[in-house]
């Protein structure tokens, strides 16, 4: 786990949350409460196999059991970026995330190599 947060210092209170080794250990409540997810970038270039970023509207999800609100697939060797137009998606409890090797809800296996997950959250 190597998470950094950088306030973007704009009129809107946007924060860049960057985890340089996103894995099956969830990063919990990264916005200290509710948050709006605007963009994300998942760098799976270090891996040969797919990884899945999972985002939860929860303060402390149980990875592999708690149903994720977002699942973003990233093929081996690639980077996926996603922008959410019209104001992002408001997660009313908390913003937590993890990255595993299985789609859907299940899965507690770390990617073999580091996955860098970056979220822009308000």
């Amino acid at each position: 786990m190597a998470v950094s947060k950088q306030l973007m210092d704009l009129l809107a209170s946007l924060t860049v949350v960057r985890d340089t080794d996103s894995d099956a250990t969830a990063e919990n409540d990264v916005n200290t409460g509710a948050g709006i997810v605007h963009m994300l970038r998942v760098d799976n270039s270090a891996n040969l196999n797919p990884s899945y970023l999972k985002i939860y509207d929860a303060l402390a999800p149980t990875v592999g059991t708690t149903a994720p609100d977002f699942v973003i697939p990233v093929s081996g060797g690639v980077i996926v970026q996603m922008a959410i137009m019209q104001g992002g998606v408001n997660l009313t409890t908390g913003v937590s995330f993890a990255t595993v090797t299985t789609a859907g809800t299940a899965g507690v296996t770390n990617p073999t190599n580091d996955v860098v997950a970056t979220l822009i959250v308000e």
Partner: protein
Amino acid sequence: MAITIVPLGLTGALRVLVDTDCDATAELNVNDGAATVITIEIDNTLNGAISYFKAWNNANPVVGTTAPDLILRVNASVTRTFVFPAGLSFVTALSYACVTAAGTAGTTNPVSNVTVRIVLS
């Protein structure tokens, strides 16, 4: 199920898929094989509850059982467009559905129509 697919008439075989009632009955293999998704617009304005768009890299998933590869949440009463600048690849097939539960489980239709527009190639 009310799907129309319209070619954009551009170089690069882009098409727009419009589904005016995305629900728990999956639309299967909508691109007749592999697909690259550029944008997904999900109109949940008719619903007073969250809806979830789920997509599978699979020609015949079982909604509520087959683990979705992509899950996008749209809150009540809003439209959101999800943009993938470099595209999002479905190397086997693209199938999708809309339900009211997060994660893998869930077979309940949204109460009112959810309209989905997908730009893909």
